[in-house]
């Protein structure tokens, strides 16, 4: 099948970017709220 790897790359690439963005948002918000609430900010 022509260009098969282009589709595979697009699929895995988009999934990686989407999950990385979601996790980054979540971790940054956890860290910020921990600071605001006076807890430890270890991650």
């Amino acid at each position, binding site marked *: *099948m022509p260009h*098969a790897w282009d589709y*595979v790359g697009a699929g895995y690439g988009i*999934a990686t970017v989407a*999950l990385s963005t979601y996790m980054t948002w*979540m971790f940054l918000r956890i860290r910020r*709220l921990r600071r605001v609430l006076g807890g430890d900010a270890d991650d």
Partner: protein
Amino acid sequence: MSTLRRYWFGATVVVALAVTAVFALWLSPPDAQQGDVVRLLYLHVPTIWVAFLGFFVTTLASALWLVPRTRRVEWDLLAGASAEVGVVFTGITLIVGSIWGRPTWGVYWVWDARLTTTAILFFLYLGYLALRRTAATADERGKRCAIAALIAFADVPIVHFSVTWWQTLHQSGTVFNSSLVSGIHGSMAFTLIWSVGAFTVFYVYLVMRRLQLAELEEGLEERELELAIAERQRVEEMVSV
């Protein structure tokens, strides 16, 4: 869970997903008909499985919240956390499925029964997440959201059985079909099973972290409420003086 254990769990998830990538992209062979495009299915299948699992957990937690004897705020938070992770994975399922559809079917999207019901599922739970953000007392909001979660879950079996009930473009179940005979073997079957396991562990990790964030958000809300009450009392005292 302690910070150290959380780090170890996170490291386990990273390793499990890395092994998935190695098998999915290098070690498993191309399909006889689909060629290398089949590698997208090692992402497509686990993400929808995890989304179903997420929505099931949301339904269970919502039911536990609705029953007065088991009502705890943690169930409501778990329901929200699991639904959000489920929505993320449903979105990825739809995108990866569309990318797979282009070389396989010749189109990115078609109003096929499976695709349509999955898109409805995505928007149902987006609506559920929007409902969680509406202004109301915690009890009112919890009740509304729990009932909405129970209703939304009705679409999950419809998505699953859509390929049996309506003979449209999407192929019927490869593993969970009526004869329960899997059509895949060897390293391809192993890759699929491994990726489902890896994504399940990933889901547990994401829900744990999202739950942690939800608890912090609850704490912030309580603190802001206390500050607002204190400020109002201060203003009232000033006015009375």
